[in-house]
């Protein structure tokens, strides 16, 4: 499997540290984490509540700034980006799938994908192309019969698939998943994970999937643990952890 993974990293975190508060009240959420995710690689980020996995995902996606260390996504070093630059970066270079789906409730499935084009300011022929792209993407996700449905008319699994479509809409090199199956039952969760795996593979898109569910980790190429803000490779109980970035 690893032989098909492109050699250029989609994400590289070097010595990332995130500290909340100062002095005696300082809380270290992520402690000198280094992680490299290859192009097209799927990495599961596993850890208990409060372990720092959400903070790490937020830093990787340009939602939070690291206190120390560097963050490079594709060829773009976002370490010193301003809030405005980070907004542009998130709009064009990275996809997100959130824990509770969070589709825009008054937009149809197709329009929820087109939000990405709307935010990018696409007009005219680009807009037309975006509409065709949204239809194709929804068909690929098995939702061609649901394009005109509002989120409230979709099942949990269908909503999550729309959210995946939205994350993939601008063809990012990296998609970040925050507990994508936590709101789904096991069977639907597995279907969604299979879909994520298939979509990432077919596009050569890298993914970091935050989860606390060890049953989902076999869909990933690699599992990285995070405990108390410290990264280590492997699933809990499978031996001595290696450093998280030694694959690349």
């Amino acid at each position: 499997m690893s032989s098909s993974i492109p050699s250029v990293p989609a994400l590289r975190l070097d010595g990332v540290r995130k500290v909340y508060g100062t002095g005696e009240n300082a809380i270290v959420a992520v402690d000198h984490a280094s992680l490299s995710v290859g192009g097209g690689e799927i990495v599961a980020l596993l850890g208990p509540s409060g372990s720092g996995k959400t903070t790490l995902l937020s830093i990787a996606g340009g939602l939070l700034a690291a206190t120390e260390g560097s963050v490079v996504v594709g060829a773009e070093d976002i370490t010193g980006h301003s809030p405005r630059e980070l907004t542009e970066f998130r709009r064009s270079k990275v996809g997100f799938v959130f824990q509770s789906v969070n589709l825009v409730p008054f937009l149809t499935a197709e329009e929820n994908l087109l939000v990405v084009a709307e935010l990018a300011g696409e007009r005219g022929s680009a807009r037309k192309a975006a509409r065709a792209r949204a239809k194709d993407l929804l068909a690929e996700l098995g939702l061609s019969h649901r394009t005109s449905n509002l989120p409230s008319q979709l099942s949990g699994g269908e909503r999550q698939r729309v959210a995946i479509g939205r994350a993939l809409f601008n063809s990012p090199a990296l998609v970040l998943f925050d507990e994508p199956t936590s709101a789904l039952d096991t069977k639907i969760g597995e279907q969604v994970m299979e879909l994520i795996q298939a979509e990432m593979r077919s596009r050569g898109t890298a993914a970091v999937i935050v989860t606390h569910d060890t049953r989902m980790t076999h869909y990933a190429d690699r599992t990285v643990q995070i405990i108390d803000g410290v990264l280590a490779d492997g699933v809990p109980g499978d031996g001595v952890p290696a450093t998280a970035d030694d694959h690349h």
Partner: protein
Amino acid sequence: MNLALTELRRQPSRFAVATVVLTFLSLLLLLLGGLLDGLYLGSTGAIRAQRADVIAYSESARDSFLRSRVTADMRETVEGVDGVTEVGGLGFTLLGATVPGEADLADVAVAGYELAPSGVPDPPPAGRAWADDTLQDAGVSIGDTLLVGPAATPIVVDGWVEDTNYLQQGALWVTLGTWREVQNANRPDAFVADGVVQVLIVRGDGDLAAAVDEATGSTSSLTRDQAVNALPGVKAQSSTFNVIIYSTLAVVLAVVGLFFSLLTLERTGLYGVLKAIGASTRRLFAGVVLQAVAVAVLAFAIGGFLAWLADRALPGEVPLQLTVGRYVFTFVALIVAAVLGSAISLRRVTRIDPASAIGSAA
């Protein structure tokens, strides 16, 4: 697809309360403004219509038409002032008039004049008048002989003129001689001698007010606009209504501010997600402002229509006058209040952290 407008279209019920409240407030603004305009226009028409560069009162009159008396000597002096080209006398008497076939008296302002105001023909023959068309509401018709005052002085209506009322009373434009006859027959306590008028309408060039007052030493001259504001009650009416109107606009601002603050609070999660996927604060805030403006426009359209219906339904004695200017003012004021009110949400939108989208199961 515009997110803000799509939400308005697909979830109109979310904005129903704000739209209804703003509709009533815009109706209230239009009615208040219409009443102010009605009172103002109905009180000042006879003076606004004057084509005067200055209006000269006797000094002791303290800018009151009814107290003022300008003698023939003073007039002669004014006519000799450099820059003065035309001078004409003007006087008003407020009385009730009996209208043929009507049980109620009509409130009239008998206005004696020499120089024709805007929209008023030259003076009619003695004993006849051009009547303000609002007197039609009191049953007056062309050709009617009105019996004016307790002395029942007859005045025949020869034709109509518009927007020339004085202190809410329908003007009857007559010669100075007829006016003196009416005044002296009905108000012997305020007798007016031949050659005496209440004020002088002065036309000419230069700083006429100062020149006229300096030459006579016994007049107090005002420009036409100053004379309008010096009419009894005009300033007080305007300031009272304006306080109410601007207070109502403050309520509009508060309503919009509160409503969209609550809406923004409700949307915190959604805005967090949209920011996470690349929506800027500016774009989200522009959406809030756009929605506030759209709600205000809709509320104004409905409120404006209701005000128009009210204008048609209310009896003529209610001095409601809805002008295009009042509609424009109310519309602009509502839009400005909507923009300012929605701006209260800016801080809240700015403070929404895109990172809140991650790790949230809300």
